[in-house]
Each structure stands twice: as C-alpha cells, then as structure tokens.
C-alpha cells in the first residue's frame, strides 16, 4: 500500500507577485511554535491510528528551506514511514548550501525539489523572484555532491517579457547543468485573483503563447528522454515522483500544517489556512481541520477519472463522449481500451474533464475500478 504525508511550511523570504499560496513573509518568529504544532499534530495522528507508514513524505510550501534543517529533521522523525520512503523537500536554490543538503541527507531526505522558475535574469525579475541564476547550477551540483539522485526543478513559463528563446534557454540550461534533474515540473504562469500580477493586466500571459511554450517544453523534454507524468510534470524513467503520483491516482495521504489537505477513503479534509489559527488550534488541543467533504459514489468515480485523465494512464475510452471525434480533433489518442490525452489535449484537460461521465457506456464494463492499473 502507498500512503503519503504532506507537511506544509508556510514561510517565505518575500512574496512573489504571482503567488496566492498559503504562505507568510513576516511571521518567522512563529517558526518554532509552528514546528512544535506540526509535531503535535503528527503525534496526535499517530496516537489516533490515523497514519499508516508513509511511502512518501513531501515538505512543500511556502519555502521549506526556510526552516532550520534540524527543525525539519525533528518533524520528519515524527513521521512513521517505510524504510524506502521517498522524502522530498522543496528548496530555494539560494538556500542549497552543501551543509544544509548534507543535513537533509542525514535526516532521511531522499529527494530535492528546487524552485528555479527560469534561468534568465530578466524573466526572474519579471516573476518577482530574487534568486540569481548562478545559484541554480550551484544548487544542482551541491545536491549531486550530497548524494541526491532524485531531483526536481520547478519552472514557470509565460512571465511578462519572456520570449520563446528565453524559455528555450531555461529548458536547455536546466537539462545541461551538471546534476541535471531527473524530474521537471513546468507550470504555466497563472493569474490568481488578488495577487499584484492580477492587478496588472499588461503582464498577463497570452494563452496561445503559453500553449506554444507548453508544446515546446514537451518536445524538448521528450527528446531528452523524459516522459510526461502529469500535465505539468515530466520525468526520466525511474525518476517519477511517488508522492505526486499518489495525488493523481486518488491515493491516500494526510496533510500536516496550515492549509494542508488530506484524503482517506473518499473523505477529504483540510486544515485552517493561516498559521496563527493553526498554531492556536493545535495548542488548544483541537483538531486544526477547517472543513471536510465526502467524495463518494459517482462523484468519487468522476474525480478519479479527472485525475487519471491528467496522466499517461488516461481513462477508459467510454468515459469520454464522442471519443472518436476527439481523436479526429487531435485531442486524445486511443491506447487499446483507453483514451489518453495528446499534447494538445493536455492543454485542454480541464475542458475535456468536464466531458467525462462516470456512468457512460464503457465497452469494457465498469469505469473507474478494475480498469485502473494497480497502485504500486
């Protein structure tokens, strides 16, 4: 069985101007209490028998590398996990000192994920990111030296002023640096409401331009031996991210920390969003849960289809109406009984998901159960 634990670390040096995530820039003094609260939440969960041994652990944020490595290690110690568990930490390239990476390594971290975004200075500036491009090869090199053979970089395309060439350069840089990552996440810059970016339409990305960059990304990465794992994720063989796969396979995981999401047996719940309220709840001995929902029956089946459609596993062909027309339109491909998104289809995954039907005619019986490849 696979089981994941996600730990949210809501601290950043400053806020990137496209960012709408649950994070803070001015509450570092609360870091110690936050870490304690996370450990308390974990211990309560262990006591309550709510945690299986984790096959994957993911420290996300925010910027987990804002935490002192020993603090992160203390949290990780509280997570019951299998011996070969994948343990990922998201890290700002500037923070990737050999000492920190060595400390991670010795505390059981197996995988690093660097927030690179771009290697082109003016693009980084346009994204409001403050790290210098030189820190990227340094971080990748340091990770390799520290013995990390599982590395991801996060990239973003579509910043104001970014050209097709700039994007191409970022892709090639990342692939050619020593210690090149086995896993790449490339996201289209998205305008989230309420962000400074949202307030500045002149910098909003153009859909057609982003679509072209996506197609280019897929072409470059495929040529370099990567295979798509999910719409925005590619990996070399054997470098897939177990934790992310859990999400796309409707797997089970528990989220620790503010704004973290959990899923077990069709029940999805999530913690209060702000870290002050999170700390207050845990300190008061209450569950920090903000809300929950039950995802059962047809809804659950649809959710499973929606998630699976985003991966090379695809969906049973019968789950999409008019699937032959979609094939003609170049949006999906038939792979036996299954329908899998093409590159163009991936760009329209949301629209195609909205067509999915959980009860649709399926040539091979029930949709969303036996047809799925078994979870590893």
């Amino acid at each position: 069985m696979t089981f994941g634990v996600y730990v949210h670390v809501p601290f950043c040096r400053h806020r990137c101007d496209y960012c709408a995530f649950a994070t803070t820039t001015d509450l570092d003094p609360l870091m110690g209490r936050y870490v304690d609260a996370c450990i308390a939440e974990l211990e309560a969960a262990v006591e309550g028998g709510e945690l299986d041994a984790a096959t994957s652990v993911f420290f996300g944020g925010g910027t987990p590398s804002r935490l002192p490595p020993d603090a992160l290690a203390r949290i990780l110690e509280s997570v019951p996990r299998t011996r070969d568990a994948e343990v990922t930490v998201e890290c700002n390239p500037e923070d990737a000192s050999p000492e920190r990476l060595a400390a991670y390594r010795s505390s059981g971290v197996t995988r690093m994920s660097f927030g690179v975004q771009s290697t082109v200075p003016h693009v980084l500036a346009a994204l409001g990111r403050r790290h210098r491009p030189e820190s990227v090869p340094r971080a990748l090199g340091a990770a390799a030296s520290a013995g990390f053979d599982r590395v991801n970089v996060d990239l973003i395309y579509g910043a104001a002023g970014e050209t097709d060439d700039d994007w191409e350069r970022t892709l090639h840089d990342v692939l050619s640096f020593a210690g090149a990552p086995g896993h790449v996440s490339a996201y289209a810059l998205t305008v989230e409401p309420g962000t400074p970016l949202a307030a500045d339409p002149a910098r909003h990305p153009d859909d057609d331009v982003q679509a072209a960059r996506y197609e280019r990304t897929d072409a470059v990465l495929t040529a370099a031996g990567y295979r798509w794992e999910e719409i925005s994720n590619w990996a070399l063989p054997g470098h897939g991210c177990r934790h992310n796969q859990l999400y796309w396979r409707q797997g089970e995981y528990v989220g620790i920390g503010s704004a973290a999401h959990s899923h077990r047996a069709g029940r999805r719940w999530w913690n209060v969003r702000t870290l002050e309220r999170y700390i207050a709840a845990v300190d008061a001995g209450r569950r920090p849960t903000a809300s929950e929902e039950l995802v059962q029956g047809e809804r659950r089946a649809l959710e499973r289809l929606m998630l699976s459609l985003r991966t090379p596993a695809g969906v049973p062909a019968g789950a999409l109406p008019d699937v032959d027309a979609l094939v003609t339109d170049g949006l999906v491909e038939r792979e036996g009984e299954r329908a899998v998104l093409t590159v163009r289809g991936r760009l329209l995954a949301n629209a195609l998901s909205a067509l999915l039907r959980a009860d649709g005619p399926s040539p091979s019986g029930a949709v969303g159960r036996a047809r799925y490849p078994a979870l590893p």
Partner: protein
Amino acid sequence: MCPVDGGFAGPHYDRRTVSASGVPAPGKVPSDRIRNFSIISHVDHGKSTLSDRILELTGAVDPRLMREQYLDSMDIERERGITIKAQNVRVVYRDHILHLIDTPGHVDFGYEVSRSLAACEGAVLLVDASQGIQAQTLANGYQAIEHDLEIVAVLNKIDLPAADPDRCAKEIEQVLGIGAGEILRISAKTGEGVAELLDAIVERIPAPRGDRSAPLRALIFDSAYDQYRGVVSSVRVVDGVLGTRSRLRFMQAGAVHDVEEIGVRAPDPTKADELGPGEVGYLIAGIKNVGEARSGETVTDASAPAGEPLAGYRDPKPMVFCGLYPIDGDELPELRDALDKLKLNDASFTYEPESSHALGFGFRCGFLGLLHMEIIRERLEREFDLSLIATAPSVEYRAYLTDGIVVEVDNPTDLPDASRIDHVDEPLLTATILTPSEYTGTVMELCQSRRADMQRMEYLSPERMELVYTIPLAEVVVDFFDQLKSRTKGYASLDYEPSGYATANLARVDLLINHVPVDAFSTIVHRSQADVYGRRMAEKLRELIPRQLFDVPIQAAVGGRVVARETVKARRKDVLAKCYGGDITRKRKLLERQKEGKKRMKSIGRVEVPQEAFISALRLED
C-alpha cells in the same frame, strides 16, 4: 386598472364615502352636472402631469400622498416615465363631476386611446408648446374628431423657455381647424392655467345625454384582473342605472353575472350603490377571466335587457412576434403561468407554445409593437422572476404555396421550402412622419432605404412637414424609429397603422454553426438585404461564440447558398495551475462548476453556445 399584484383590495383601498357636502352621490348625479373627457396627446406632452394637477386642484388626493404621475401606478410605468394603461378618475369641480381618463401617448397603445374616447363626450388635446404638433397629436386628434368629441386644445409646458405658444397655436389652427383663440395655455408643471382649463371643460364639453328610465346599457372600456377581486372592469353607463342588486347580461359574451360591487375611482376605489347615466366607475361581477368582460362589451340588466348593444370596437391585432424561451428549460411551466396571468390584464398580446431546436420549448408571442414586446418581456422577468431569451422580432408573412394553400408565417423557420412557394406577401403600414422641414431630405433617404413608397408629402406649416408612406412593417421593426430619431436630432415623430399586405421578394437567411442550422437565428429579409444581413450575423456569432476544442465554421446561407463564412478558432489552452499541497478538492470543484456551467450552454451539435451569446446575437440594436 391594477397591476397583477397591485392593490385594488390592498393597502390603498379606502372606503370613504363620496357624497361629501353638496355633491350628489354616485347614481344620483344629474347628467348636466357630469363631464367625461380623455386627455390625449403625443408621448410625453404632459397628460399624466396635467392629471396630477387636476387631482390636486380638486382635492382628490391628499397632498401628503401626492407624487408625480400619480396615475402611473405600475412599476414599469414609473421607471420609464410613460403611461401604458389608460386610467380613469372621478373628481369634483365646481359642483360638477368630472371623469377624466389619462391615456398613453405611445403608438403601440393607440387602442387604449380609442377605447377611452368611446367613453367620453370630450377630449383635452394637449400639445407641448416647445415641440408643437407631433405624429400622435394628429393621430389621436383625428380619432377624437372621428368619435365626434368636443376637443379642448391646450398648449402645455408654457413655462419652458423654448415654448413658442403663438406659433404652435397657429399650427394647430391650420392643421386641425381649431381656432387659435380657443386654445388654452397652461403649465401642467406649475399649475398655471389649469383652473381655467377645468372651467373650459365644464363650459365646452357637452354633458352626457343618457336616458335614466331606459333599459340599462353600460359600456365596458377596460378590464383588469385583480388577484383578490377577480376582474375589475371600467364602465361607462350610457342609459339606465347600474345598481348593486342588478343581474347583468353581457350582451356580446352572452353571459349573465351578478354584481358584486360597483364604485368609483376617486382615485381610490370607493364603493357606490348605483351609477347613473353618464357616470363612469368600476364594476366587479365575480368574473375570473378578462376574456368574459372584454373592452367594448355592453352590459345590460338581465331582467329588463336593452334591445341593441352599444357600438363595440374590435380588439387590436398583434403586429410583431417573437419567441420567448426560459433560459432554464425547467422554468417552462412558470413561464406559461406568468403569460396566463399577464394575459388576464392585457388581452392584446397572444402566445402559443412552440419549440426550437436551439432554444428548447417556449412560446411564440404576438405584440402590438416593439415597446409592447419590451414591456411584456420586462414584466415577465421582473414580476415573475424569469430569465428569458427572446428571438428577433418578426412579422406575420403570408406564404402562397404552389398548391393554392396559404400559410401564415410568424416564425421564419415555419416558412415552407422555397420550391413549394409561389409568392410571399408581407404586412404593410401607412406611416405618418412629422418632421421639421429641414430634415425632410434625410427622412426621405431613410424611408427609401427601407423600401417605403411615398403617398403624400405636405407642409403642415412653414416649419413642419408631414410625410405619408406605405412601408413594410418588417422594415419598421428593425430600428426604424431609432434611426428616424437620430437622423432628426429627435425632432421627427412617427405614427402608423396597418394597411394590408403586398407581395415582396423575400428570402430566408439561415445561420449554421459547425454545419448545423440554428433555427433561432433564421430570419426573413428582403432579398436585396439578405447577403449583408447574413454577413453581419456570421461576424457577430464569430465574436460571441467562445473558442471550442476544435475549429468551428459559421456560415450564413440564403436559400441553401452560403453567403458568408467565418471561423471560431479552436481554443488552445486551459488554466494549467499547480495543484498545491494535495488540494484535489479545488480542481474537482472547478470541474463540477464547469459541468454545471454546461447546463447554461445550448449544444448546437458539438458546439456549446452560452445563453448569453444567444441573447446578444438576438438583440436587435447593434
């Protein structure tokens, strides 16, 4: 009349007695103390404002309760500042009972004027002294002359700096033959001259001449449905006495009803025991359907019936048609219910079920004109909380088929195949346009571009021209009035009446989305305009239809020949947002919203078109 949910028996109901000191109670008023008149004019010349002053001057309305255009009681009238329904009121002035009827000025509601005039001996013809004679001044003035009524001509708005009463008086004298010296001058706004006008009404308008001892004959000139009381009719007693104990025979309908209540509007409904000859009031007789108490009906005493009914009048016929569809198909029963209810109050519109491939189930509705259409639609949406799609307005064509059958076509999609058609006739209007003479050229140009034939052209005065055209109704339905107004800086006015049918070279334009014809967009136009129309619609649809997962061709076809083609390019990308911290819920909710959103979409083949796109495409202005 009362709006559907208005308060005939509601909070305004006031049962104070009318027989104040010295004034005879209803039923007891000697005919020579009665004056019945309608106030008529062109739109906005001040009829309702004058009615306000009369209500004040005669003390009919408590000054604290007074508000502008008091008689315009429907929300929609107050908001738009226009009168839609005629209203009658009984006031007392110098020991006389005056029944005044405030009428609407808009051409769509001309039939209200003619009904009102049938209940009167006189008419106050109001003319805005800053504008002079306008199209409905003439149309309504002529109607009064035809009814043989005494006309009291009045220049209003003399307080306005732009008022030119001398010139207007001369114009009225020239055009209507009313001596300039007899024309009164008032300001309905300030009240100046209103008392003198009332004096003139008492002196000049003849008293009704009814026979109190003859069998009862009363004319119903309006009926409205009140949710508490059922049908409330406005009646004018001609002969005899209408009493609370009467059993009434409705002569045209052939039905018998007991009187439940009679009374007068002063302006609040006030019960009375009787109404005598010449008196105007209301009648409630336990009738549930306005169709059984139609305007023009003669009411007589069932036990001592009159021999001959009064001259009735014909109901106006709808001239403009459109399909009304609930945006949410589940609201069809509510729409039917709402139409039934509105119909109780407004016998002049028609509706019958129809279905559209694109829009689902709805009703084809007929209206007296575009304003009437707009108003009914707005009332449906507002008073009944419905969201509707209206198809483009159409007129009623007559298709003569090769096999000799004649088909009336009020929905373009019903036009039979071209191969079966011998010829098609379209309805015509006689349109009278009054314009300041300097705009004559531009008005003529507009009319020519709308296939109009000039019948007559004449100077009403050195400054004002009257142009009379025969013009296809279909041309007037498409923004003719707006064009006329904008080309003449708002100075020209238009009146029209139906004037038969004529054969025309017409073609149906169909629009195809992804090769599927969309019936809701089909239109019949003159062949010379078909290509232009097709191109315009195709372009408009290209802008309105959201990008789909594939390229969508849009075509306009005239009789099977494609005259325009546009393409909505395929959408390339959705939001590819990162899924943070395992937040699958957000993604699924987005999907659920999208699925929900599809319900507000109409599928044309594989193409999903949002309701809003239909609404915008069918909007006629741009």
